[in-house]
């Protein structure tokens, strides 16, 4: 193994330590990851295809600046110089931001999202922008207008979605860290099916300024990493109050890194864990259920008390979500009107078309099928005569789901379930069956509806297909530290059992890397 490959398999915390010890420079680390991307990422046609845009020049310039700070004895943060990938739904000044959509092809935002600005200020070189389902609508990354991302565990399978690019980049050692966004599971479900760690923080815990919104009352930015400690480090770096986001929580984050370190000692005595009755059993793959049960046993061995808790309204979460989310999305996407930025398409055969005709033609040409489905669904749910029956009713169901969480957290400290009902499915398998696709988020959606935080931790491989399974932990709002304590304890126990972290198979290297190849 070359020195370059060696650095790419380290965790972010290990890389930060190596930088601090002077064993490596940020330029070397950044170049090693750029080399790895060049070797395995490929294009829409072959390879992992986790990146929509790679900014080698910008990343190396940031790395040089980081090395200079360190040489002067003043690194900006612990992670200064550790490279990162960013989901293409977060605005990056001077770097394209497409949201996986044709309607934003070539758009270069004039400002940074707050989380991106915090990454830059903290000294993390940004490797590039990662692939995603168009406007984060999907569970497989196949709805990207630029072609799918492939799962590093099996290139014929999906990496989950919508943040499949961030998860696959981290799983394939193309980046040690990434940012994702989670509206109904888009960080946690890709984490589960790619064997990576994904965290959806408490609603309002991380700024959304500069996040191209899908559903404002559900969206949340969070870390995508290979270890629980790395997730805590990144979460602390980007989290906390932002005056530019009026929904951001104006209070300090709990000690997340401390919780991860404490959890890694393996002692969970006194912790009460609730297994959600409604998030297991029918519809959950046998190998997923088996790994979940095994992880539960490890929590018990670590001293936790495990009980079963019923959340009876969770069975309505998926339906309520698929009313609320499209309603908000249809309103949000009205801004893509072909007037101020993005695509403008002139209708064929119409002399001197009006602004409205241009708008209609542009939205038809610029949006993919799933985006159109959700805009139409949202327009329907918000229509006169149906508003109360759909949108109003879904908002009430949301209250009932929050009450279920409140009752459960009165009995236990955390709730647990499998993250995703199945392991990664094959590319194309559910692409044209929206309802089957939506079922992937069955276990992740309740947390978004109630605004509580959740983590997915790799729990091993399913026996029947050898693919990764995720273990989900949910905590009360603002108690994100519990995710890290429990996640780190489980991770430590599993790594001890496996003799180290999960490692995906060798990937084909030496691919032809091209950007923007058509789907």
């Amino acid at each position, binding site marked *: 193994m070359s020195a370059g490959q060696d650095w790419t398999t380290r965790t972010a915390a290990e890389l930060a330590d190596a930088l601090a010890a002077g064993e490596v420079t940020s330029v070397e680390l950044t170049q090693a990851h750029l080399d790895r991307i060049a070797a395995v990422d490929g294009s829409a046609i072959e390879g992992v295809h986790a990146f929509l845009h790679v900014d080698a020049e910008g990343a190396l310039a940031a790395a040089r600046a980081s090395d200079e700070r360190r040489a002067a004895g003043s690194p900006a943060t612990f992670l200064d110089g550790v490279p990162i990938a960013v989901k293409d739904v977060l605005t990056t000044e001077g770097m394209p931001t497409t949201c996986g959509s044709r309607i934003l092809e070539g*758009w*270069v*935002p*004039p*400002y940074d999202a707050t989380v991106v600005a915090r990454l830059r200020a903290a000294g993390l070189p940004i490797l590039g922008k990662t692939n995603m389902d168009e406007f984060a609508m999907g569970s497989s990354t196949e709805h990207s207008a630029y072609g799918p991302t492939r799962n590093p565990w099996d290139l014929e399978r999906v990496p989950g979605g919508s943040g499949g690019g961030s998860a696959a980049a981290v799983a394939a050692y193309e980046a040690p860290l990434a940012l994702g966004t989670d509206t109904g599971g888009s960080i946690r479900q890709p984490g589960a099916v790619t064997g990576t760690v994904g965290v959806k923080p*408490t*609603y309002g815990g991380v700024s959304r300024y500069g996040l191209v919104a899908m559903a404002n*009352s559900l969206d949340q930015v969070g870390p995508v990493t290979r270890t629980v400690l790395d997730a805590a480090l990144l979460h602390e770096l980007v989290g906390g109050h932002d005056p530019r986001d*009026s*929904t951001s*929580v104006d209070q300090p984050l709990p000690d997340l890194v401390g919780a991860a370190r404490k959890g890694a000692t393996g002692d969970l005595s006194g912790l009460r864990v609730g297994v959600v009755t409604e998030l297991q059993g029918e519809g959950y793959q046998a190998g997923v259920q088996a790994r979940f049960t095994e992880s539960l046993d490890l929590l018990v061995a670590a001293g936790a008390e495990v009980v079963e808790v019923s959340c009876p309204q969770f069975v*309505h979460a998926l*339906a*309520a979500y*698929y*009313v609320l989310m499209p309603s908000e999305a*249809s309103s949000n996407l*009205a801004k893509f009107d*072909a*007037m*101020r*930025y*993005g*695509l*403008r398409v002139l209708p064929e055969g119409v002399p001197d*078309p*009006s*602004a409205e005709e*241009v708008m*209609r*033609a542009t*939205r*038809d040409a610029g949006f993919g*099928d799933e985006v*159109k*489905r959700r805009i*139409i*669904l949202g*327009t*329907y749910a*918000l229509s*006169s*005569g*149906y*508003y109360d*029956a*759909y949108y*109003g*009713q*879904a*908002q*009430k169901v*949301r*209250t*009932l789901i*929050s009450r279920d969480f409140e009752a459960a957290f009165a009995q236990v400290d955390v709730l647990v379930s499998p993250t995703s009902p199945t392991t990664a499915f094959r590319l194309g398998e559910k692409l044209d069956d*929206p*309802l089957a696709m939506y079922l992937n988020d069955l276990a992740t959606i309740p947390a978004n509806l*109630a*605004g509580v935080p959740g983590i997915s931790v790799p729990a091993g491989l399913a026996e029947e297909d050898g693919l990764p399974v995720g273990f989900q932990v949910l905590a009360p709002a603002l108690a994100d530290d519990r995710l890290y304590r429990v996640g780190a304890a489980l991770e430590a126990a599993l790594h001890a059992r496996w003799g180290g972290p999960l490692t995906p198979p060798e990937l084909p290297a030496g691919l032809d890397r091209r950007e923007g190849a058509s789907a």
Partner: protein
Amino acid sequence: MPEIPGANGPDGQVAITREEVAHLADLARIDLSDAELDHLAPQLAVIVESVASISGVAGDDVPATSHPLPVTNVFREDVVVPGLTAAQALAAAPASEQQRFSVPRILGDEQ
């Protein structure tokens, strides 16, 4: 809120028809082709039928939740901060003219 003539609610038998989908696409300003309508309408009917399962789940006594962690009256200090310059704001415009967004005509012939 726009009216949808002839649509069936959650209590009706037909979830959503092709004509209704065409009307909704029109309201959403998306020019769907006939082929797209043929493809999307049956899928939307299945989805609408599925989400209609929430009807009757919560009674009148249950309040609605619009936001998981409600916050009210969020203010910031009234200080001037730099915004985008005209050049930055117009940099991504499909067309611009004299420091303004240039758009197709907004009035019809009869207006």
